[in-house]
């Protein structure tokens, strides 16, 4: 199976570095999947779930925004705050939603407020999707 180099990093650590065969990200304009030979793309990320497949196993992570860059040298995911999806429970998600809500309430100028509200919306969507 064809693979591509993937570098998945957050400010605190390197989460994954190696060959992957697929990558699924929540792009700013919709989720998309990257397979080997994908068109070079750069996208901002929404808050959501990033998953990648490497060596037959699929790992899933919750990210709070960031960027993905897919070029001839492989893919890089720059995640802003990141945790394994298994660690994300309803309580933590509620906390994130609360923080986003506070951000939205505190934001002084229009752009920041819009961004915070957007994230709030994304998080609520994620919560709805994750709930059984």
């Amino acid at each position, binding site marked *: 199976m064809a693979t591509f180099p993937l570098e998945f990093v957050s400010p605190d650590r390197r989460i994954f570095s190696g060959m992957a065969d697929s990558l699924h990200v929540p792009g700013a304009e919709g989720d998309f999947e990257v397979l080997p030979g994908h068109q070079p793309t750069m996208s901002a990320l929404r808050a959501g779930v990033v998953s990648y497949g490497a060596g037959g196993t699929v790992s899933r992570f919750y990210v709070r925004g960031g*960027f993905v860059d897919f070029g001839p040298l492989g893919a890089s995911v720059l995640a*802003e705050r990141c945790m394994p999806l298994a660690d994300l429970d309803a309580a933590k998600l509620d906390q994130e939603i609360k923080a986003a809500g506070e951000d939205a309430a505190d934001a002084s100028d229009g752009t920041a407020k819009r961004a915070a509200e957007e994230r709030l919306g994304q998080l609520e969507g994620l919560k709805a999707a994750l709930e059984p």
Partner: protein
Amino acid sequence: MPSLKDLRNRIASVKATQKITKAMQMVAAAKLRRAQTAAEAARPYAQRMEAVLADLAGAAAAGGQAPPLLAGNGRDGVHLLLVCTGERGLCGAFNSAIARLARERANSLKAAGKTVRILCVGRKGADILRRTHGADILDVIDMRAVKSPTFADVEPIGRRVVEMFGKGEFDVCTLFYSRFGSVISQVPTALRIVPAAVEAKEGAAAKAEPVVREYEPDQGAILAQLLPRNVTMQVYRAVLENGASFFGAQMSAMDNATRNAGEMAKKYTLRYNRTRQAMITKELIEIISGAEAL
């Protein structure tokens, strides 16, 4: 001439100090390891971000629509110096080396007729700079409560710098911190973060075929998100490198102090023994000459 009792007290106090410095050295060594791991863990992200930014910046510059955070706002009158130092002393020349670099820069900028503003991250740098540049210090950001800095801890600093730039409160921002080379080498470093110091890629990378990328949402929107994050990331990296440098500097300073205390204790012990021996000799002479006189 100190008495025997004085000397005994002095030896005891030097030895007590030595125990403290020895303990501090070991604590610093343990904390250094953690700080170093944290600094190294942040490097891949910073490198990736630089690569992505360099890519985007090249494309934006070619399109002639680089945002001010990247290309500058065209002025060069007001300089913001972001001085990151430690919160504690007892670490050799660590804090003063960073402060000196910042002060030299501030002086040369002033000599060139520019306005200088200083934002201190860490109390120690402010203490040193207050003497000469007290009027220029805008604020001191206290990081004492933060044990091991996380990205979230420095986000407010990055946001503040970006906001100030947005309001036109400064034109160029330079970050001062100490790069961690090894336990014995911490290099005070100045790094321009606004406008972003993106290295123009020469040679191999420039010759490579320009990659046509698809941008989502669009190039400008991505840059607008990426640049403020880059500022925060640079501050974060500076804080982490500083943390590692601080403990490295403290470790070697405390190692020196322990050794000096050892030498001092040895010197005093020698003097104590000599004085003691001299007194015994003196007493013996007195007894003998007393017996002879009878």
